[in-house]
């Protein structure tokens, strides 16, 4: 059923209608506004069929029969208060311009005919946005993104999963000013919607979210506050108003190595928080991310390649090394370098295997520095605690908290996680068939200008080829214009929250009308403009507040644990494997051992996850024998001194 009649199409020689644009007028009290979807029914059949046109309002005009404002001034004797003296209101027009969403029949494509204009009903909205093709129950791939409102009508708006998560198109980009929580909220809502509606026959889906600032994404498993209007939207859109059921958090340690470097450190929430630590093997593959290209020249690069190919992870012994080396950790790498350089110095050699000693020193310096720069993430001893690549779970969110890390460490995490996802998706052994990777602050990782970094190349690669693999990028940033064009250009779906006027003045927004830009600049929280391959024009929607605890509220309700002692940190870690472990037992076990040794033992235990946790943990420590200083032997002179020696002592 079509909505109420609101206006009539009008065209003049100066302002004609075209196949893509038309004009109509309405009464002064009509509920039409920018973004309203309308339906036009033509009056003359074309090919035996009455033409039906759907459009979205992009511009509005209002004017009276006055030719000059001075006449109004004269008419009120120059006093604005004189307005009430006029017995009659001037004839006033509300004239709107709409962009065509769809014409039926689609051929021949003709200028929009004169006709009656009505508000689009639910069915009309589905046809206008070509959603009818993927709302068919037999092949439904619809993912609710929000509700379109006009007057008293509310219509659900759906995205096509084939165009959101691949393979037809993929990726989503969201822009908006900071501080309104629109970007994060929209992604949280959309992930919930995807998890609820992604069709089973299309496979499984998980999400990896990089938490890059504050506590934004750290309480996705905790219920948030919803209003009745939000619940009504959840019901209409068929999504359960509940937090995510399956969420796992990963965070590196702090530099000390025993506290997790995350705001989600409250003990009540520690159950699903895991450390993220990598050793030499994991890092060397992505050394390029951490090494400054200007600093590492071709010679150093060649030496690093040699280390990766021939030294790391295998038995290596060659002069001038004094002993065979099997390098598996940064600690062992340092031992290797020390041995190598000492041997070269002893022999007075300037080069080894064509690598000059200065190059070797430089590489040693840069690689050794990695474990310092990424302390807490990269361990000297090579302990690995990683995301569950190979056993990802369907409808699970994996949050990697990198908010407190240095930029280098963030880049390393991002590069390695995405690369591993890609490797596993290519081999089809990740555990799920689709992964959504959410990256905020995209203008930092894939800027439109600046150096061509490893991370940017990787983001470009995902955006251009990820859809074939099921690797889907959900990205967000404040200024879309500052992001690499190919990254945002390959995003099939784009969402826009409230935008900055300066940003809207950039060329990328020139296709939007002035009124649409004004609306974008004044959008309320919870409103979005959506572009999607099926939609011929952008559409404005509202989405419900995410059913999860907001980061700020979560940080207040679950305050960050204070700096804890080593024994408490170890207890908390081991209790995940064996809840019976007590603090006293930990204290007794680690008494007298060095901090690094305790951390190594804890890491080994967490990595191995043995059945007998306590025995395994104890076995990591060497027996400490109390030192027993032997009595000093009395020195016996070789010969006795002459008794009359005047110089004898």
């Amino acid at each position, binding site marked *: 059923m079509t909505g109420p009649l609101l206006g009539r199409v009008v065209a003049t020689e100066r302002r004609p209608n075209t196949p893509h644009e038309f004009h109509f007028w309405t009464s002064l009290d009509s509920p039409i506004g920018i973004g309203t979807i309308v339906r036009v029914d033509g009056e003359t059949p074309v090919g035996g069929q009455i033409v039906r046109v759907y459009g979205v309002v992009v511009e509005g005009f209002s004017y009276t*029969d*006055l*030719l*000059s404002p001075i*006449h*109004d001034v*004269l*008419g*009120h004797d120059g006093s604005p208060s*004189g307005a009430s*003296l*006029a*017995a*009659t*209101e*001037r*004839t006033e027009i509300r004239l709107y311009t709409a962009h065509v969403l769809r014409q039926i029949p689609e051929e021949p494509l003709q200028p929009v005919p004169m006709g009656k204009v009505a508000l689009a009903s639910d069915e009309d909205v589905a046809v206008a946005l070509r959603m009818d093709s993927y709302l068919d129950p037999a092949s439904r791939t619809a993912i609710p993104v929000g509700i379109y409102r006009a007057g008293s009508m509310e219509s659900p708006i759906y995205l096509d999963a084939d165009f959101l998560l691949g393979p037809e198109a993929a990726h989503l980009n969201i822009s908006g000013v900071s501080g309104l929580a629109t970007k994060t909220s929209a992604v949280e809502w959309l992930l919930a919607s995807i998890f609820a509606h992604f069709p089973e026959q299309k496979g499984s889906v998980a999400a990896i979210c990089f938490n890059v600032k504050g506590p934004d994404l750290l309480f996705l498993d905790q219920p948030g506050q919803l209003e009745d209007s939000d619940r009504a939207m959840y019901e209409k859109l068929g999504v359960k108003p509940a937090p995510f059921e399956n969420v796992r958090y990963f965070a590196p340690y702090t530099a000390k190595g025993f506290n997790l470097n995350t705001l989600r450190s409250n003990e009540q929430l520690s159950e699903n928080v895991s450390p993220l630590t990598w050793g030499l093997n994991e890092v060397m593959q992505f050394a390029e991310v951490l090494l400054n290209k200007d600093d590492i020249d071709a010679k150093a690069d060649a030496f690093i390649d040699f280390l990766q190919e021939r030294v790391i992870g295998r038995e290596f012994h060659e002069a001038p090394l004094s002993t065979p080396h099997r390098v598996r950790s940064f600690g062992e790498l340092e031992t290797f370098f020390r041995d190598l350089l000492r041997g070269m110095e002893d022999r007075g050699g300037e080069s080894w295997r064509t690598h000059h000693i200065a190059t070797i020193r430089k590489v040693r310096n840069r690689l050794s520095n990695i474990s310092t720069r990424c302390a807490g993430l990269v361990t000297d001893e090579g302990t690995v605690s990683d995301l569950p690549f190979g056993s990802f779970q369907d409808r699970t969110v994996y949050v990697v908290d990198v908010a407190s890390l240095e930029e280098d460490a963030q880049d390393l995490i991002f590069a390695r996680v995405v690369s591993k996802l890609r490797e596993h998706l290519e081999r089809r052994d990740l555990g799920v068939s689709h992964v959504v990777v959410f990256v905020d602050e995209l203008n930092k990782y894939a800027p439109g200008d600046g150096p061509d970094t490893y991370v940017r190349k990787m983001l470009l690669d995902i955006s251009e080829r990820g859809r074939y693999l099921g690797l889907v990028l959900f990205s967000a940033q404040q200024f879309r214009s500052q992001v690499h064009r190919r990254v945002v250009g390959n995003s099939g779906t784009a969402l826009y929250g409230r935008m900055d006027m300066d940003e809207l003045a950039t060329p990328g927004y020139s296709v939007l009308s002035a009124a649409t830009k004004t609306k974008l600049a004044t959008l309320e929280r919870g409103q979005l403009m959506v572009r999607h391959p099926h939609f011929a024009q952008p559409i404005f929607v509202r989405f419900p507040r995410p059913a999860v605890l907001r980061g700020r509220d979560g940080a207040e309700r679950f305050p960050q644990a204070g700096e804890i002692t080593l024994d408490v940190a170890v207890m908390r870690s081991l209790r995940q494997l064996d809840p019976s472990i007590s603090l006293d037992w930990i204290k007794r076990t680690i008494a007298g051992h060095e901090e690094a040794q305790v951390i190594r033992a804890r890491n080994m235990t967490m990595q191995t996850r043995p059945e007998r946790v306590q025995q395994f943990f104890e076995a990591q420590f060497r027996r400490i024998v109390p030192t027993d200083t032997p009595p000093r032997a009395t020195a016996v002179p070789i010969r006795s001194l002459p008794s009359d020696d005047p110089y004898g002592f």
Partner: protein
Amino acid sequence: MMAPDAARNDASFHGVQRRLAAVLPAERWMESSAALELSALRAQDAPRLIAASLLEGKTMRAHRVPEAPQPRFEAFLDGTQTSRVIAHADGIPIVHGVVAAVIRHRVQRRMRTWGSPRVARALYAPLALLPATWRNALDAMELTIVDTLANRTLDSPHPFALQDAAIHAVQEAREAVERELGERWCGSAAGMRELFVDGAITGSEKVATASCVVGVVKSHRTLYAEGDALRTLVRLNRGERTSVFRVTSPKRTPVASWYLRLRDPGGRDPLWGLVRVEVAEQRGASDKDIAVRANDASGWVLAEALPLAVPDARWDKMAYGVRDCEEFLRSIL
């Protein structure tokens, strides 16, 4: 393409031309020309002064309208006419005339159409002077044909004289539709409410005697004042009126009338912002009653001075409601 029935009954200027061209293929047809009203009538009406027969007092003098202007009119009536020559038959103009009238009802300060507007299209020609082929062709048309010589005699068959006769016939048709609408208003339940009529109300006895009707005349080719009375008239200030006088004319109903200055004429011609108001004459009424009636009606008319009827060139005299009627009629013709 227009449906066959619609084409057969198309009474528009070009529609009539097309239909006649089908019957008279050898004739030559006028392009879209300017409306005849723009030139012919003004040239013909000679300005004149007529001594007024006073109903209020002994001499024509200025009276300040005492009360603040209060809007009272419920509706506005106006008509329009357009005459254009579609062809000349041996020098005789065949005129296509369109007349229309509408009452626009004011509801919550916005204008709405009251009932249905009246629209009539016809061809105007001196049938006795036309060649037979033309007469036969016009007879065959499903269109109203008006003989411009039916009620008048001409001094000469000069084409301009024939053209003026056609214009007058169209004018009569326009007055007829205005009269019809005015009488309908007066005869309806709405007739208890005040109606602002653009122009004289003397053409219909029913309208001219209705207490709810006020006619406002903007043109002053005839001024009802001479000598001192004329000086009084041209010196009227804003918000002042003249004494009430009677307007009579053969075949028309006498009415009470007075001049009223709507706007300050400073620096403009003496008739700027001046209208002549017509109301039903109150037989046997005292001077005081006549003055009260004139003051009341003047206040209502003054209240219509806002908003300005710009961009119409006659905005100094025109009420916005009348302009609204004209715009409405322009949009439907």
